[in-house]
C-alpha cells in the first residue's frame, strides 16, 4: 500500500491560494474553517517563501494520541481520519497538532467547540465511500474514486504534491537536482520523522 503524503515545494508556490479555495469548494467546508492555508515566511523580504499547509497525516499522529475518545484512525493509505460521531469537540487535538490543522465550528454559546474538522486527504470519513452522510460530514471522497487530493491536483505551478511519499519525494529530488536549490520538504521531519535527502 502507498504511504500518502503532502509535499509543498516552497520554491514554486506563488501564494495564489487556489489550493485553499479549491478545498473549501470541493468539500463545502463551513464558514470560518480552512482545511488548507498558505503561509508566507519572510514576507516582503529577500528570500520570501510561501508554503501551503494542511493536516500532514503524521506518522504516529499526536492528535490521535491525545484524543480522549479515540476518534482518530489511520487508513491503509496512512491517511489520518476521524469520526465526527465520536468527536466531543474538546480541543485536545488542536493543542497537540504541530500544524494547527484541527479546527472547530463555533456551534453554541460560551465559545464551546463543535465537532472537529480537518483535512481528510480527500478521503472522507468512516461512513460508506461516496455516501451522502460522508459527503455531509467530511466532504468528497476522491481517494475512493482513484483521484488524488484536489488541492494538489489543480495546483497551477505544481508546487503542492500529493501522493505516495516515495514518488513525490523522488519528483522533488529531481527538481532540486535540476534547478540547483530547494528549501526543503516543509514539515516532513515533524510529521514523518524523516526528510527528503537533497
Amino acid at each position: 500500500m502507498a504511504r500518502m503524503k503532502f509535499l509543498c515545494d516552497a520554491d514554486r508556490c506563488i501564494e495564489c491560494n487556489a489550493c485553499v479555495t479549491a478545498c473549501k469548494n470541493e468539500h463545502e467546508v463551513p464558514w470560518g474553517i480552512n482545511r488548507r492555508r498558505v503561509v508566507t515566511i519572510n514576507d516582503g523580504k529577500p528570500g520570501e517563501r510561501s508554503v501551503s499547509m494542511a493536516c500532514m497525516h503524521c506518522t504516529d499522529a499526536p492528535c490521535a494520541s491525545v484524543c480522549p475518545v479515540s476518534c482518530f484512525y489511520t487508513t491503509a493509505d496512512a491517511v489520518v481520519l476521524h469520526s465526527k460521531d465520536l468527536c466531543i469537540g474538546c480541543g485536545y487535538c488542536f493543542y497537540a497538532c504541530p500544524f494547527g490543522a484541527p479546527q472547530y465550528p463555533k456551534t453554541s454559546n460560551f465559545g464551546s467547540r463543535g465537532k472537529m474538522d480537518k483535512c481528510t486527504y480527500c478521503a472522507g470519513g468512516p461512513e460508506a465511500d461516496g455516501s451522502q452522510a460522508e459527503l455531509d460530514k467530511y466532504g468528497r471522497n476522491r481517494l475512493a474514486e482513484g483521484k488524488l487530493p484536489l488541492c494538489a491536483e489543480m495546483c497551477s505551478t505544481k508546487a503542492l504534491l500529493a501522493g505516495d511519499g516515495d514518488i513525490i519525494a523522488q519528483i522533488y529530488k529531481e527538481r532540486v537536482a535540476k534547478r540547483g536549490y530547494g528549501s526543503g520538504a516543509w514539515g516532513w521531519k515533524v510529521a514523518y520523522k524523516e526528510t527528503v535527502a537533497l
Partner: protein
Amino acid sequence: MASKLSKAFRALAFGFVALFAASSLPALAQQPTSVNPTAQSVKEEQLLQALKPGAPVAGRISIPDKQAANLIQPGRDWRAFNQETLPKLGAYSLIGIAFVLVAFYALRGKIRIDAGLSGMKILRFGALDRFTHWLTATSFIVLAITGINVTFGKFVLAPVMGPEAFAAWAGFAKLLHNYVGFAFMAGVVLTFLIWVKDNIPNAVDLQWFAAGGGLLGKGHPPAKRFNGGQKIIFWSVVVGGFLLSLSGWHLLFPTAESIEHVQWQATLHGTTAFVMIAIIIAHIYIGSVGMEGAFDAMGSGEVDLNWAKEHHSLWVEDVMKGKRPAGNAAPQPAE
C-alpha cells in the same frame, strides 16, 4: 477655467514622469547581471534551528484566522505530558491517597469523641457556611469525575462501554465540566470571602502541628475555629481553586491565546486537579468515616459540645463568652 485645469494636469503629469525617472534609473543601474535565487532563501532547516525551543515557525497569512499563520508549532512535549506524565501523576495521587487513608484507618481507626456525646449541641456552621461548602463540594465532585474521565476514561470506561456509548457520555461530561466550572468558581470566591478571617496562620497552629494535630498520638491540641489541618485545606482550596479557575477559564475561551499558552494552561489544569483531588479525598475521609461527630458541622451545622471542646477548644471558649457568633449566619436559638 479649462486652460487652468489642463495646466494643472500637465504639471502633475510632468511631476509623475520626473518622479518615475528618478526612482527607476538607479534601480535599473543596481540590477545584478544574474540572479541567484537561493541567496537568502528560507530553508526550513535553518528556520527550525534558529527558533527558540517551543516557539512556532510563523509567517503572514491572508485569511482572518491569525493563529493559522503558525506553520509548524510545538506540540510533542505537551503530548508526552498529556499521555504519559499526567496519567502517571493521576494514578499515583489517587492510589497513593487511598493507600494512606486505608493505612491510617487500620492503624488509628475512627477518631472518637474521648468524653463521649454530651447531648448538647453548639452551632458551628450557619446557613451561609454550609451553602458555600456544599456549592463548592458538589461542583468539585462533578468536575473531578468528568475531569478524570478525560484522562482515564478511554483506558478504563471505553473498553467496557464501547466507543459510541463512551463518546456520548464523554460529550455529556464535557458539557457538564464546562458549565459546572462556573459554580465552582463562585464557590471558591465565597469560600475565600467568608472564611479567610479565621484561616490566617498563627502560633496556635504551630503548637497544633507540633502535637500531631490530634491525628497522631493521644489528646487534642487547642485550636480556634479552624485548626492547622483545616487551614491547609482552606488554603489548598483557595490557591488550587484559583489556579484551576484561571487555567480552566483560559481553556474555555482560548480564541486569543497562542498554542503554547493553551498547552501550558492545560498542563497546569491537569496537574493542579490531581493534587486537589487527592487533598479533597483526605478531607472527605476525615469529615465523614474518619472522625466521630465531624460530619454534623456541615450536615446540620450543629456539633456536639464535647466534640467542639476537644477539637476547637479556643473557639468554644470564645463562643461561650459571647466574643464571637458561632456560624456565618443568624444563630438559631438553642432548643
